């Protein structure tokens, strides 16, 4: 039978459990409850049901109490005073003290965590600075949203940043969407450019320049390079004007104001400096000298330099792209074979658009990997030594700490660790920055990046702290107090799945990086040692100039009188350092449908002798046969391409000049091993001599410095009005692989870091595993176990983990490096040995710390071990 009074008493008792509810409040509520019940009973509801309903409506004492508490408390949060606060200021010092005590007691583990985090953060900071710089190219350009580079996609998929000179004007005539255009005719890249300034008093300043560009009149209104001197509008108006970069100006004019001064070009043409520009550090286009194009080049379909267009802001890009895609062959007088697609590349993407983006993505990924490895170390060590903190956790819980509070404590510890590591990392990064800048040619600074960089780095620090701390925080705080207090410290689940997976993950990344490094090195070694078909040893490359052009024969004869000088020739560049192509080649029996694109070299007698190139048939150009001036030498690929049965003696028409093929030279690598060998024609016809940039001198072995002096003397004799500039081509084609060699070095550094941090982690884990098994080892020794047996037992799990990591890493590395190698037309291939070597390195990196710890343990005195604790 339901008893209202008893239910009321029970209800009041329950309400009294809440300290916010004073007795009078409860009485007031009780009256209300009784009134409600009476009201419901009057409606015909049973007393029991009525009470149940009304009491349910009133709610739980906590909720009712909280509402009343809010009325009377002065606290803004309204949090009742008996609830555990989120943060005890009084405990803060205790947290610090406990953390410091733990670090002191486990110096070794703390040192490992800290140094791992610091090294990882250093790598991440440096990579971050580099990536940010890479991504920030050409932001300074005012019109960057409408400024595009014209590109041509070749039928084989290669994106070409260079387009024929006549293309941009033809497109601008046809499409009103193009507001302005400018070709960049890189004069300095194809012919000798020298500038001289003669001050009223003092010595003449003269020098060769390579970054000399001829541009269309709209250039400076498209590219908003800041003008330090002179007038932007008028800068290119006069055909004799030249705009000069501030750094180059200093070389000639020192502290004088260059504007209005006279610069003499190649000792024959006087130019007036009309402006001085400053080029921001991350601009992809960096001309030192800019002058107006003297010739509109509207029918020049040669293909060597970039062109830019400024589009009307209202242009619909997709439809405009569609319109111009096929415009190359429509405009070219001699259409090209295959589908050459004209495209537009936003100017801000030019820097990354030609393969660099992959590197940026790659290094960002590696930075994340390395940080992940460092964070995993922290997690592993923190959970591994959780045994030593389980009593603390238990006790804190017993005296009232909630789980959230413990989580905050451990996260806080991780954050402090990460802050310490971050401080160390900043110092390390500052130390290493000069090396990075040397390697990349940038001038990155740690603190010059403004609030964004500072904020990002700080964010990185917090992120690392949280990532590293979150798992240990949850793991440690989850222990139940009774259990935590009962078990002795040091007994933890010995091989948690998480720990296994994380170590395997760490080593997977390390092995991956090592394998990639080895693959890059192997390819570089292959590239370096592969017979290229030419020999650049002891070849001196002397800068050509108009006087040497005039007096070349005398210069050459004079040089050859010296017994140390073996041969002399000249050309646009070393045979591997030029890339000129023309469709204008005809030969007997040519299929009229075939539209060739053939490489060519404009050179002189003795080219093949100077570079040690061999003939497979026919002969070289001969100075005693004047008719050879209009004859041609081709390479084996050209002979095959032209399908000539008897190439020697066949007729060939090159750029309108008919002659005969007198020899077939063996194939050599013309550009870099990235590209396949192409058909090539060599000519020594003086008609094309505008482009001769260098004289090449082959010197006998031994006495190079003296020979260099002799060459200098002769050059100054035949060209007294020009400076002498020469370099040995000893590095030869290696200079073509700068970016790959750099990549290899960076990869090596990163792989080293990865394996170093992983090794540190293993060292820490091994130390704890040994510590935990001290007693077990003691018992085993007492029972007669050998040192080798104990070492084997202790290292077995680690060995298995590393092997698993290798199993995962090998296929991934193979996939990645196979793709990278496909970028080379000639490749070293990926042998199994690369992977085995990477595996061995990783096993070694793990074995040394594990062996060290286990041997130490195995040799320890069992008596001590058993007395331990």
């Amino acid at each position, binding site marked *: 039978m339901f008893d209202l009074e008893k239910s009321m008493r029970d209800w009041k008792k329950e309400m009294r459990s809440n300290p916010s509810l004073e007795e*009078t*409040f409860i*009485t*007031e*509520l009780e*009256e*209300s*409850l*009784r*009134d*409600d019940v009476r*009201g419901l009973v009057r409606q015909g509801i049973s007393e029991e049901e009525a009470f149940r309903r*009304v009491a349910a*409506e*009133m*709610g739980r004492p906590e*909720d*009712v109490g909280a*509402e*009343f508490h*809010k*009325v*009377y408390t002065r606290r803004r949060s309204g949090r009742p005073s008996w609830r555990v606060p989120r943060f005890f200021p009084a405990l803060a010092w205790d947290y610090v003290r406990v953390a410091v005590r733990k670090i002191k007691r486990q110096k070794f583990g703390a040192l490992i965590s800290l140094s791992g985090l610091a090294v990882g953060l250093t790598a991440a900071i440096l990579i971050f600075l580099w990536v940010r710089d890479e991504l920030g190219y050409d932001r300074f350009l005012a019109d960057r949203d409408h400024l595009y580079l014209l590109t041509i996609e070749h039928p084989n998929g290669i994106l070409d940043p260079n387009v024929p000179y006549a293309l941009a004007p033809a497109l601008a005539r046809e499409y009103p969407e193009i507001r302005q255009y400018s070709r960049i005719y890189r004069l300095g890249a194809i012919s000798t450019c020298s500038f001289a300034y003669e001050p009223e008093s003092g010595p003449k300043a003269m020098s060769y320049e390579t970054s000399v560009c001829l541009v269309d009149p709209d250039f400076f209104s498209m590219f908003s390079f800041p003008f330090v001197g002179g007038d932007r509008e008028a800068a290119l108006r006069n055909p004799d004007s030249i705009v000069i970069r501030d750094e180059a100006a200093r070389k000639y004019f020192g502290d004088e104001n260059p504007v209005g001064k006279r610069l003499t070009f190649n000792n024959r043409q006087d130019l007036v400096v009309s402006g001085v520009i400053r080029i921001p550090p991350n601009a992809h286009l960096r001309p030192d000298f800019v002058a107006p194009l003297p010739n509109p080049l509207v029918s020049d379909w040669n293909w060597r330099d970039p062109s830019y267009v400024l589009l009307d802001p209202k242009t619909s890009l997709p439809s405009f792209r569609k319109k111009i895609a096929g415009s190359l062959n429509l405009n070219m007088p001699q259409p090209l074979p295959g589908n050459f697609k004209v495209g537009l590349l936003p100017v801000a993407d030019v820097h990354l658009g030609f393969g660099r983006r992959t590197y940026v993505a790659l290094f960002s990924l590696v930075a994340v990997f390395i940080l992940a490895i460092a964070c995993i170390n922290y997690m592993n060590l923190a959970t591994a030594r959780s045994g030593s903190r389980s009593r603390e956790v238990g006790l804190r819980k017993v005296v009232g700490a909630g789980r959230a509070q413990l989580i905050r404590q451990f996260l806080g510890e991780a954050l402090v660790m990460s802050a310490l590591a971050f401080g160390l990392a900043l110092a390390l990064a500052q130390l290493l920055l000069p090396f990075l800048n040397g390697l990349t040619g940038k001038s990155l600074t740690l603190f010059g990046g403004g609030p964004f960089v500072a904020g990002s780095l700080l964010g990185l620090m917090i992120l690392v702290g949280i990532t590293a701390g979150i798992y240990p925080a949850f793991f440690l705080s989850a222990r139940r107090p009774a259990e935590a207090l009962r078990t002795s410290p040091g007994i933890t689940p010995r091989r948690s799945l998480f720990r296994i997976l994380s170590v395997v993950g760490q080593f997977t990344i390390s092995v991956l990086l090592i394998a990639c490094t080895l693959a890059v090195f192997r390819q570089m070694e292959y590239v370096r040692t592969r017979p290229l078909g030419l020999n650049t040893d002891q070849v001196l490359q002397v800068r050509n100039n108009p006087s040497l052009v005039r007096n070349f024969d005398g210069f050459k004869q004079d040089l050859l009188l010296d017994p140390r000088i073996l041969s002399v020739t000249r050309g646009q560049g070393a045979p591997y350092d030029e890339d000129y192509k023309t469709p204008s080649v005809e030969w007997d029996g040519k299929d009229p449908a075939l539209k060739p694109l053939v490489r060519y070299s404009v050179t002189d007698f003795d080219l093949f002798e100077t570079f040690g190139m061999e003939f497979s048939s026919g002969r070289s150009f001969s100075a005693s046969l004047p008719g050879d001036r209009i004859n041609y030498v081709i390479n084996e690929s050209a002979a095959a391409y032209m399908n000539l049965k008897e190439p020697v003696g066949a007729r060939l028409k090159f750029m309108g000049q008919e002659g005969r093929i007198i020899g077939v030279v063996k194939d050599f690598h013309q550009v870099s091993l990235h590209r396949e060998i192409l058909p090539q024609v060599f000519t020594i016809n003086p008609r094309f001599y505008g482009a001769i940039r260098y004289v090449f001198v082959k010197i006998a072995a031994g006495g190079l410095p003296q020979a260099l002096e002799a060459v200098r003397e002769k050059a100054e004799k035949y060209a007294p009005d020009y400076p002498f500039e020469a370099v040995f081509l000893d590095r030869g084609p290696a200079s073509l692989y700068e970016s790959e060699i750099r990549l290899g070095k960076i990869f090596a550094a990163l792989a080293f870091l990865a394996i170093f941090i992983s090794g540190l982690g293993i060292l820490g884990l091994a130390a704890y595993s040994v510590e935990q098994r001290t007693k077990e080892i003691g018992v085993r020794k007492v029972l007669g176990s050998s040192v080798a047996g104990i070492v084997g037992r202790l290292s077995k799990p680690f060995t298995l983990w590393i092997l698993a990591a290798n199993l995962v890493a090998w296929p991934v590395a193979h996939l990645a490096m196979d793709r990278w190698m496909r970028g080379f037309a000639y490749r070293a291939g990926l042998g199994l040995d690369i992977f085995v070597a990477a595996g061995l390195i990783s096993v070694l990196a793990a074995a040394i710390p594990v062996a060290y710890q286990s041997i130490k343990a195995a040799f320890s005195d069992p008596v001590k071990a058993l007395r331990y604790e």
Partner: protein
Amino acid sequence: MISKNLVAASTKPIILALLYREESYGYQILQRIRRVAGGRLAWSSPMLYPVLHRLEKEGFIRSKWRLSEEGRMRKYYALTERGRKEFAAEREQWLSVHEALTSLWAAAEGTD
């Protein structure tokens, strides 16, 4: 149903209005609101009592324990002088909101 925010905002003027004529106690207040609003204003006892306490703390109402007809102690609430002033002020505010809304709605319908 009236939204939660509006219910919360209107508790004060409603309680002041109910207590303007005569003193009352919790259960009665709830009953009268139910009568007036016909269930559209969902007030409950755990919501009402803290509000009454708050108004008392702020000095708009005062309470007195008195014996009820059933012979039990019951807490009666009555308006103070400050409460009367607050009643007028609240009324002023709600009327101006009401006026503004009325004219806006009239204008809105007029343009249709």
